[in-house]
């Protein structure tokens, strides 16, 4: 067997075996990649190259946006920002059937548009909306399921760290990916709203009769303006070419910090814990990024993406069949793995396949992030599901039952987004980004 094939085999068998044994994903990927590098370059040079690739992978100015968006998210999670967005969402939804559940969906989408962390969103919005809905007679399992199903929309609506990670592995523009996420992310929220509507339509008791006066409406909207202004500053700043995404993320940190101090929702002495929390998450992500750089080096040497492309093309050459196949693979991967490592490991493998039949890398990024976001609300590895169930005090099983219709709706949305490039590419095209 030639050396490239042996290296490829060492890499794949190593990763699968070490993951199955419950070894941290980063260590499994790093160790297998280093062993494969040794088989190619020998002991000394293999380890030297591994260390170098790891450092090079992390040493990247544009990735600095990741810790900053994480930090901004943690600050907003502690701050009074979520509460003001919830109030604003409630006003927008008004007295539609199931209005409080609809409010929950809208608040998650808005929180996603300012922060981008689905777990922060499911916890912050869920802990506000859950008790409110329980008081108005909403079944608690339904309320929890609505909150869980709608929270990941924030990972698709910009800013989104997952998109930054994808932009790194696919060499696409962060600005284009961010803008491309708007339509599919809003559709995610729309799917959730449609399902809530179907459920609540026949239950007249799920309406809030309280009617806000014009003055009250104005006050609620005014209170949400500072938080919503963040979208204009961050996304607007990037699109107008005023800031790089990294600079914009730093502005997001400073802005959310100032807002939270003004709202008196965080104190100076909380800052240490907030920074530490963000530092931890950053380290977990960046260590994964580092070992993935070693893995990409080995993979391209062993020509693994080429092998996967050839193998998939023997199954079918019909693009739609291949898309469905990749959708199924991504959904399965998403069930077992967090989205960031999944993007780092599988984007380099699938990207050559989809570009071979003419899919735009930005479109694939959206479709991949969407598929993996569905994975965050499915067991056995579903952080949004677990945190959402926990804040609602419901068991995973009872929430799962109510989650099923949402899940079906979201998979349909995924297929539609995968088959319709315009849903992802129209807006960036309009703004001259794609």
């Amino acid at each position, binding site marked *: 067997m030639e050396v490239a094939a042996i290296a490829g085999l060492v890499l794949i068998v190593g990763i699968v075996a070490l993951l199955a044994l*419950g*070894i941290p994903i980063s260590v499994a990927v790093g160790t297998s990649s280093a062993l494969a590098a040794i088989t190619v370059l020998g002991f000394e040079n293999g380890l030297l190259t591994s260390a170098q690739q790891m450092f090079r992978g992390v040493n990247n100015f544009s990735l600095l946006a990741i810790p900053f968006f994480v930090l901004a998210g943690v600050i907003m999670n502690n701050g009074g920002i979520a509460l003001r967005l919830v109030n604003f969402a409630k006003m927008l939804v008004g007295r539609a059937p199931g209005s409080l559940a609809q409010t929950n969906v809208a608040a998650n989408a808005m929180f996603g548009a300012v922060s981008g962390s689905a777990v922060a969103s499911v916890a912050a919005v869920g802990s506000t909306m859950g008790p409110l809905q329980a008081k108005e007679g909403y079944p608690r399992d339904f309320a929890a399921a609505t909150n869980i199903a709608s929270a990941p929309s924030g990972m698709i609506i910009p800013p989104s760290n997952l998109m930054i990670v994808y932009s790194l592995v696919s060499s696409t523009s962060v600005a284009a990916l961010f803008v491309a996420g708007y339509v599919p992310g809003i559709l995610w929220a729309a799917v959730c709203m449609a399902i809530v509507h179907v459920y609540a339509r026949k239950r007249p008791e799920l309406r809030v009769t309280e009617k806000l006066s014009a003055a009250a409406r104005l006050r609620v909207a005014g209170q949400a303006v500072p938080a919503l202004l963040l979208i204009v500053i961050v996304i607007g700043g990037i699109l107008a070419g005023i800031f790089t995404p990294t600079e914009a993320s730093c502005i997001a940190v400073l802005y959310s910090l100032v807002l939270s101090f003004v709202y008196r929702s965080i104190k100076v002495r909380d800052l240490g814990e907030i920074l530490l929390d*963000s*530092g931890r998450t950053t*380290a977990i992500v*960046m260590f994964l990024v580092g070992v993935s750089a070693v893995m990409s080096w080995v993979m391209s040497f062993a020509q693994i993406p080429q092998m996967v492309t050839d193998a998939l093309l023997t199954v079918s050459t019909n693009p739609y069949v291949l898309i469905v196949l990749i959708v199924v693979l991504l959904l399965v991967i998403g069930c077992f793995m967090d989205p960031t*490592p999944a993007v780092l490991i599988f984007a380099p493998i699938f990207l050559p396949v989809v570009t071979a039949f003419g899919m735009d890398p930005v479109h694939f990024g959206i479709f991949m992030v969407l598929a993996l976001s569905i994975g965050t609300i499915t067991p056995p590895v579903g952080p949004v599901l677990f945190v959402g169930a926990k804040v609602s005090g419901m068991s995973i099983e009872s929430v799962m039952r109510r989650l099923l219709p949402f899940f079906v709706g979201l998979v349909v949305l995924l297929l539609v987004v995968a088959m319709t490039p315009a849903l992802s590419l129209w807006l960036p095209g309009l703004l001259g980004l794609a």
Partner: protein
Amino acid sequence: MTHVKNALDVTLRWLCVLLLAALVLVVAWQVFTRQVLSAPSVWSEELAKYLFVWLSFFGTALVFGERGHIAVDFLVRRAPEHLQRAAAVLSQVVTFAFAALVLVYGGWQLSQLTWTQDVPSLPLMVGWLYLVLPVSGVLVLFYTVYHLVAVVRGVENATTDGEPDAV
């Protein structure tokens, strides 16, 4: 050993907090010089990158100390207790091997090779920056030995149950 670990934990926590705070300030300074002074700082981008690398690797060591790196552990969680313990031991052994070979050995070689190479725009040598690999590697070695002993002696559980972190 526990005393050493606690002292190390506290030191690394402070280091991460300070590095991240410094990172915010340095990039804020860069935005300020570029947007307001129209005279972009020449050193801030390089410095920010290296602070970020240090934060990433020292943070990595800290998270190993907390057994907090994400794993696909639903299979192991369904296994009987003695197998869980064996998997936990193996996990520490593999992490030890990775840290020893790639971070400490590979990182040290790399640092030696580039010891006298200048960093553009900062009064530093490239080799010094690479030193973060072997240094954080040694910390990871210490933590893996600590957890290995703790798991074998039954002081720590085979599986950790932290808050799920969506990354």
